[in-house]
């Protein structure tokens, strides 16, 4: 294990929408890690402040659309005095290849981290060939 580095601030990237949003709030692109294991592809997204009921994972035409909405009601009665980051919803889209089993998609939210596990289709799994 490498000694932990001092964390630097990562500026939140705001979404430049292709179509106009009708929700009066900002949208940000969540920081995402994508890794692949033998039987699945996993997307890990940072969506701080998003509750379970605010998450929307949709699959349409091979595009996985992930949206996480913030509940702004929590900020009611708070008077902002100093601000370093913007608060907004999160959204990001991923194009899936045909290697993914589209029925085996699983999403889990824990402490602002959304983990989407995409199971690989049978034909894309590595096969072990025994030598006769």
């Amino acid at each position, binding site marked *: 294990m490498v000694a932990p580095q001092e964390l630097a*601030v990562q500026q939140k990237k705001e979404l430049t929408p292709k179509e106009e949003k009708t929700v009066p709030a900002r949208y940000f692109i969540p920081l995402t890690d994508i890794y692949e294991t033998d039987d699945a*592809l996993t997307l890990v997204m940072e969506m701080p402040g998003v509750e379970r009921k605010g998450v929307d994972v949709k699959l349409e035409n091979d595009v996985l659309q992930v949206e996480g909405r913030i509940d702004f009601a929590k*900020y009611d009665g708070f008077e902002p005095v*100093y601000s370093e980051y913007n608060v907004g919803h999160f959204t990001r889209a991923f194009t899936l290849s045909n290697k993914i089993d589209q029925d085996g998609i699983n999403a889990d939210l824990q402490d*602002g981290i959304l983990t989407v596990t995409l199971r690989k289709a049978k034909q894309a799994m590595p096969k072990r060939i025994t030598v006769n």
Partner: protein
Amino acid sequence: MAMLFSDPFDSLFNLQKTLDAFRTSTWLDSGLSAGGTYPPLNVFRKDDDFVVISELPGLQKADLDIEVKDNTIRIRGTKAVTYPEKAGLHRRERMAGRFDRAIIVPVSINADKVQAEYRDGVLAPFLPRAEHDKPRSIKLS
């Protein structure tokens, strides 16, 4: 009578003044113990009290340490990003590491009544203003 030469005492006094100004400026003061810039903070006020909100997704509660003294709050900890052992990485945007940040709020904090909430990756310590620091209204007799 017109002065032909500049007064040597004048420049001496000027030097003294400059040195005094340098000594009384806050430039050489000891700063906050923690000089980090992560995490970014949003500070809100609710009546007399303050709430310092920061986005720290995916932290273990044991890896988070919050200290409060007088009017300073210090937030430090370690953020870890782990992957399964036999994984191939396609994209890596999340960062792991240490952080240590302190911020001064303009009131004294009642350290006994501080409540820190960590939910959905958002840390929100509630800092109540100390009773002795609150303004007192004076009744007219």
